[in-house]
């Protein structure tokens, strides 16, 4: 069936609402990658089995990631007469028992994470209140009052965890494709660009170039054939925002792309998604097929005469292909290597035609901005960074997950309020934003407001949205080494500073971590960092030294301790630490002796043990197993 106008969309919306809120109970299982990794597929199957066994009138559906990945697998239960209750940390047995309880009209309070009494339909700007008559879940905390969700504002993630990504009607039910219909029937191309410009939206891939301006460049570039591309080559360690959006709400990206294509004057688009995201690929592929079937993609979209088709191009797993010129080369079937800019892709892009490339999150923002208006959107955020940003909050943090917050939120709020602080009561040491291209921001800057400018001033960058939290046990030299090791492997190797320079920086860092470096090596490291940053061909090399430069800027004393005192203050670098057993504390229990893989520990029962330094490989097992804190590191 081809949708011709708004009326047809309305009809599908009714169908979609019936699917979202059926007459019977509906159980949604979060089946994004994060859920599946924690066993959500088995939970799903267990629920289906139990429902069939008991003969319960219920619908079981899959949904995307609700963001609280720490608590996966998440299962949410919607019933026509009660609040939506979200259960967390499920397993097949708990899921089976839950269905049993539900069948008897009960809930399991102790497994519940939170409940929703209403849902926000962000496109329409409305709230849909559930009719709650039952008493179920009365003492369960509200979703919007849970510290993890309280400060979040979901625009890009509006549908993730709320709809079945495989069901286009559920997307339409929450206002999806209505914006496109309005754009194609009522708005001129320039008006769309103007609205995006006025909204202040900046590229969410990390560099933060104003999206409207970028679109205008491409629209104004001479040429009949123009391309638009969605960059889903998310490769930063610890970042998975784009994956979750494609898995949980692919149509939001497609709708954004069609609107962009109309504004720019393009009839062909690509989604470049990395091969390591098989689920995201499947999800997008299916979404494209559905949208084509409904006439929302392809020829004569919504009977407007506008044509636009989207193809998927799969990357082969090179981090550098996230760089736009390398991405273009990769789509063209050449080696994914950057080329000098200018010419910029807006002028000469895919197959030398004007091309506009935006990140997944940028595209997903578009329908909301057009629907709600630039004024509404630009009220959120700071002076130069508008709207919200999606971060994947990972590392040494209690609440790992995907969070969407208004720009300008303080790091402190991200880490302590949303993230719930550092596990085991440890001290917060630093946070790494922007992945291998970003930097480490120390705890002293916890009041920093997160936006493009502030992060850059602090020596880091917004990047695509990875946020890795580190605690007091983290060695900053080791962190710099980790990221440089990553960029050394992922550099394409084309230009000298990036290929040779990063390699040499890593050598120096390695020497530092082994206590083999001298003070002058630190100078050399700094001058190398500067040249790699300034002289590299593309942004990979241009930002690769950031982890080194920021750790040097904020944690220089740690570098100096490694060099001058030959000590690793965080007790991480194996060459600079020594394990010994305290004679006073050791009870001679023999546990360490039993566990030591090198047989380096000796001693008689009930008498203090000792470690043979020559045999010890510093694996730290004795330290971990000792119940009397008798194993010491110095």
């Amino acid at each position, binding site marked *: 069936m081809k949708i011709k106008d708004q009326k047809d969309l309305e009809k599908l919306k009714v169908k979609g609402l019936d699917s979202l809120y059926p007459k019977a109970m509906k159980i949604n299982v979060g089946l994004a990658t994060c859920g599946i990794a924690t066993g959500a597929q088995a939970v799903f199957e267990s629920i289906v089995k139990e429902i069939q066994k008991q003969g319960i009138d219920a619908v079981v559906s899959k949904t995307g990631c609700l963001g609280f990945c720490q608590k996966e697998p998440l299962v949410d239960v919607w019933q026509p007469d009660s609040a939506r209750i979200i259960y967390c940390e499920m397993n097949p047995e708990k899921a089976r028992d839950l269905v049993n309880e539900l069948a008897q009209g009960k809930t399991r309070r102790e497994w519940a994470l939170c409940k929703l009494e209403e849902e926000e339909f962000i496109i329409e700007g409305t709230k849909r209140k559930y009719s709650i008559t039952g008493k179920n879940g009365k003492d369960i905390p509200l979703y919007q009052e849970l510290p993890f969700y309280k400060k979040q504002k979901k625009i890009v993630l509006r549908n993730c965890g709320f709809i079945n990504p495989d069901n286009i009607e559920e997307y339409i039910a929450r206002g999806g494709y209505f914006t496109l219909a309005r754009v194609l029937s009522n708005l001129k191309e320039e008006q769309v660009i103007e609205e995006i410009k006025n909204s202040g939206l900046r590229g969410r891939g990390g560099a933060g170039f104003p999206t409207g301006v970028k679109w205008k460049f491409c629209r104004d570039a001479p040429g009949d054939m123009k391309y638009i591309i969605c960059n889903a080559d998310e490769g930063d360690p610890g970042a998975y925002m784009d994956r979750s959006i494609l898995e949980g709400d692919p149509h939001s990206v497609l709708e954004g792309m069609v609107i962009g294509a109309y504004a720019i004057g393009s009839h062909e688009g690509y989604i470049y998604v990395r091969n390591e995201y098989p689920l995201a690929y499947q999800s997008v592929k299916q979404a494209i097929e559905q949208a084509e079937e409904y006439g929302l993609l392809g020829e004569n979209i919504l009977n407007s005469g506008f044509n636009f088709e989207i193809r998927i191009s799969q990357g082969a797993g*090179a981090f550098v292909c996230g760089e736009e010129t390398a991405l273009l080369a990769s789509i063209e079937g050449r080696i994914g290597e950057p080329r*000098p800019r200018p010419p910029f892709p807006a002028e000469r892009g895919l197959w030398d035609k004007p091309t506009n490339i935006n990140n997944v999150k940028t595209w997903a923002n578009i329908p909301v901005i057009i629907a709600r208006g630039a004024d509404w959107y630009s009220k959120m955020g700071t002076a130069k960074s508008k709207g919200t940003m999606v971060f994947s909050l990972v590392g040494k943090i209690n609440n790992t997950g995907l969070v969407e917050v208004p720009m300008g939120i303080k790091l402190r709020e991200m880490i302590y309020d949303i993230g719930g602080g550092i596990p085991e009561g440890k001290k917060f040491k630093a946070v790494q934003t922007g992945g291998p291209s970003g930097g480490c921001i120390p705890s002293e800057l916890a009041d920093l407001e997160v936006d493009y400018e502030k992060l850059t001033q602090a020596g880091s960058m917004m990047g695509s949205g990875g946020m890795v939290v580190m605690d007091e046990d983290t060695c900053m030299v080791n962190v710099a080494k980790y990221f440089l090791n990553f960029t050394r492997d992922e550099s394409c190797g084309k230009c*000298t500073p990036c290929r040779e320079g990063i390699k040499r920086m890593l050598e120096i860092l390695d020497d530092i971590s082994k206590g083999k470096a001298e003070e002058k090596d630190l100078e050399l490291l700094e001058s*190398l960092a500067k040249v790699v940053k300034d002289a590299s061909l593309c942004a990979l090399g241009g930002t690769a030294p950031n982890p080194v430069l920021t750790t040097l800027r904020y944690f220089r004393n740690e570098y100096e301790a490694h060099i001058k005192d030959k000590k690793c203050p965080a007790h991480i670098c194996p060459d600079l630490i020594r394990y010994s057993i305290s004679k006073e504390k050791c009870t001679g229990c023999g546990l360490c002796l039993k566990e030591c893989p090198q047989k380096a520990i000796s001693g008689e029962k009930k008498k203090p043990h000792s470690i043979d330094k020559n045999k010890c490989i510093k694996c730290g097992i004795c330290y971990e197993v000792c119940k009397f804190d008798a194993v010491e590191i110095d």
Partner: protein
Amino acid sequence: MLNLTIDAKKVSVEKGTTVLHAARKLGIEIPTLCYHEGVSPYGACRVCLVEVVKGRRTGLTSSCTCLVEEGMEVKTDSPGVLESRRLIVELLLARSPEVKKIRELAQEMGIERVRFRKEDKECILCGLCVRVCEEIIGASVIGFINRGADREVETPFQAQSDVCIGCGACSSVCPTGAIKIKEIFDKRILETWHTELELKSCKICGRYFAPKKELEQLKGKVELPEEIFEICMDCRRKDLSRKISEIKTGMI
């Protein structure tokens, strides 16, 4: 015509000119390694870096790829440029300490010692061989393999090439002498590319003079008398001088 200043000297150049060429027009020498007039610019060695001021922005860029824009201000000898070039050459010298070209460049820049662990690679990955083989010869025998620090120029699967015509353009364009070609009796051996090709013998003197494959390809590309492809260069020259002397002595 576009106007720009390079090191405070004014110059006008045609649209489409690179900063490197504009500088050469002024007699300003900029070192290059991966640049060659005959193939497309690549911007990889970064030895030709210059500082470009555009409005409020200043940045380093490769002069071989950067096209001149109206009002551009270029510096080829700012401390930032010189410092970057020096360190880049030092990095290359650490990679290829025995390569003459790099040693000379380092000497010109006053680099006295290398602060990094020395390697002994001959190839500096300038990519000239790859470009000449693709763009000029049209054979695309070689390409880059691996990534980052492991990058190398190689044939597909590091195996004997069945498209190489043995022309040796790669070797003649290589600035470091990294590409080894030798001839033993009736074979031309491209060691670096794991490839051996049969040579043709001269109809007159019998000497082996060019790979059969290369001559076959040339035949299809240029319109020359058939015998040109049968005779070695020496005999062709002898033949030509014989003809000239015949003209002189009025035998024709």
